[in-house]
């Protein structure tokens, strides 16, 4: 199965927020650590609500967390 044409900056954002762990992020958005890892590795595309929650945790716009890979989508 091809990965979704979306990339994300969660790893970098976690690093920028004091090396926040996947578990900490998971707890703050009400998900499991495994789901956060799947999102971060681009193996799972989260719902819009979850995407907004992640952006809210990092206090950035959603576009700074997730990026649409136009070329891959076409």
């Amino acid at each position, binding site marked *: *199965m091809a990965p979704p044409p979306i990339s994300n900056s969660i790893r970098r954002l976690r690093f920028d927020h004091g090396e926040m762990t996947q578990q900490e992020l998971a707890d703050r958005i*009400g*998900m*499991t*650590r*495994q*789901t956060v*890892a*799947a999102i971060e590795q681009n*193996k*799972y595309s*989260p*719902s819009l609500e*979850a995407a907004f929650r992640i952006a809210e945790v990092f206090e950035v716009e959603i576009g700074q967390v997730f990026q649409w890979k136009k070329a891959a989508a076409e």
Partner: protein
Amino acid sequence: MSFREKIAWIAVLTTLAVWIYYFAAFWIDVFGRQLDGNQVLTRFLICMGISLVVMIGLNIATGVMTPKNIDTPPDELERQIEARADRIGFKLLEALVPLGLIGGLLATDTIRSAFPADPAGSVALIFANGILMAFVLTEVVRETVHIVSFRMTA
């Protein structure tokens, strides 16, 4: 490995271990023309009991090791995986039950002639166990879909 994946592993391994033994013993009895209703019922109750005790015990042990996860509702990925497993399981059951019933109806005369001592009882036992086998197989497939889906996102 997530809490729910561990639960799926427990369900698959326990179901396979217990019910492979049960159905192997049952079909050996059927093909050996030695079907004894009381013995089958006793074996069924023992297997069901073992299955329940082992599954509940292991699930509690897993929960105790990761107490935070017990009360946590499934997140969106887990709900998606659950829905996919249910959908596949339901489709399989939809196919297996009519197949089993049609196969059973076609084989009724053969079963009756194979067990002249108790033809009606034997037909009923084989029908019931055929349906039970369909349910067990569906459950194994459902839990296997969980495991495969979790592994694909790990």
